[in-house]
């Protein structure tokens, strides 16, 4: 069954390129989460706003981001916007699409976090003489952060896996670079195996450190 000779040295020879592309993957992930989180905060606020325009904007953004495939969103940014005369590079398209997607999911996570704090806590804090700002910073936010911390970490991992879709439109992040290298060396299994291990290691480091942080920060 196994008369195949594995060739790992060719992967080792291209190790610097793989590392560089992994750095690009991390960079897109980090940026997409920061942008996504900023938009998600706004969406979560708009979602319960009294202005119907803002409310429908938030509702439709969240519904669209969550009910269509991420790959479709990337196609939309890369091919679809081109029809409107907006030409984005593969890098910008992937970043925009993943950030759009993140914003939808993160908005729901944040909304869940805020609704998990009973409104009476705010009243109690105000009754004890705290100002609105103080009540938010000292009473509400710490509890929200504790609820949303691990779901956000999951979303970060998801965003990292999502950036691999960049390979389909020719972006050379980790998966894209792997595809490029295996097409030159004709060693698909070895290259994809190493790439899979790299994704696994990054994800394990991220979740491991997140659990350490949450164990220290949220002991109360």
């Amino acid at each position: 069954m196994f008369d195949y000779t594995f060739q790992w040295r060719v992967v080792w020879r291209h190790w610097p390129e793989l590392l560089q592309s992994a750095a690009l993957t991390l960079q897109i992930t980090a940026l997409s989460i920061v942008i996504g989180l900023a938009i998600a905060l706004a969406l979560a606020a708009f979602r319960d706003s009294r202005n119907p325009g803002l409310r429908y904007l938030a509702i439709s953004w969240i519904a669209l981001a969550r009910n269509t495939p991420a790959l479709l969103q990337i196609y939309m940014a890369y091919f679809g916007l081109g029809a409107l005369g907006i030409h984005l590079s593969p890098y910008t398209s992937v970043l925009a699409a993943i950030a759009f997607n993140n914003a939808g999911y993160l908005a729901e996570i944040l909304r869940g976090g805020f609704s998990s704090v009973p409104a009476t806590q705010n009243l109690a804090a105000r009754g004890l003489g705290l100002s609105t700002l103080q009540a938010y910073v000292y009473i509400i936010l710490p509890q929200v952060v504790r609820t949303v911390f691990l779901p956000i970490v999951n979303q970060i991992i998801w965003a990292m896996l999502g950036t691999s879709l960049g390979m389909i439109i020719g972006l050379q992040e980790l998966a894209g670079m792997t595809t490029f290298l295996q097409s030159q060396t004709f060693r698909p299994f070895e290259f994809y195996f190493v790439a899979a291990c790299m994704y696994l290691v990054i994800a394990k480091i991220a979740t491991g450190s997140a659990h350490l942080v949450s164990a220290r920060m949220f002991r109360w």
Partner: protein
Amino acid sequence: MDYSFTSNDFWLMVRGAGITFVLTIVSGFLGTLLGFIVGWARTAPSRIVYHLLGAYIDVIRSVPLLIQFVLFNSFMAIAGHPMDPFTSGLITLSIYISGYVSEVVKAGIESVPGVVRKAARGLGMTYLQDFFYIVIPIGMRSVFPAWTGLMLGLMKDTSLIAVLGATPPELLRASQIIINRIQEPLAILLGAGLFYFIMCYSITVMTSRYENSWQQKREVIR
């Protein structure tokens, strides 16, 4: 060659939506079956089984699905069993979703309080009777929404099967084929997005109605 959107194109997209649906149903069924077994096995007292299957789940959940597709495909080729892209994609999707389903199943089984299970055993039920008549009806209901979410995610993830060049084309691949010919990306992608949205949204609405009926029954009992 015709450069406009014809009725054939429309049917290609409808058929693509059908393929997406079939892929979701088949791999969802196989993946749920496998995930159920894995999740159940992880609630067994053996620590070795727990950690071994935990590693399986970890790998599935931290490697991009795209990489899993090509890795499985090239592994089967070098193992001497080359597969057609559609089958290998279907198997990969089933394995992929089983990793997520097993966590949900495990959570469901663990959500049943220990005293309930002890009471069942105390009434003379065997382990299997307790499992099938007590644990599954109670536990699986509580994780049903999470499972629905997974199936919706699966439906969107079937679009990635396109990297293998699987035929017949599912919805997104069909749209891509049409775009290549008529060069109208925006309209076609919006159409494909609408298809996905309707499919996902109708499932959400159906399942939430189902959940509500459970909720009402529970209130009647109370």
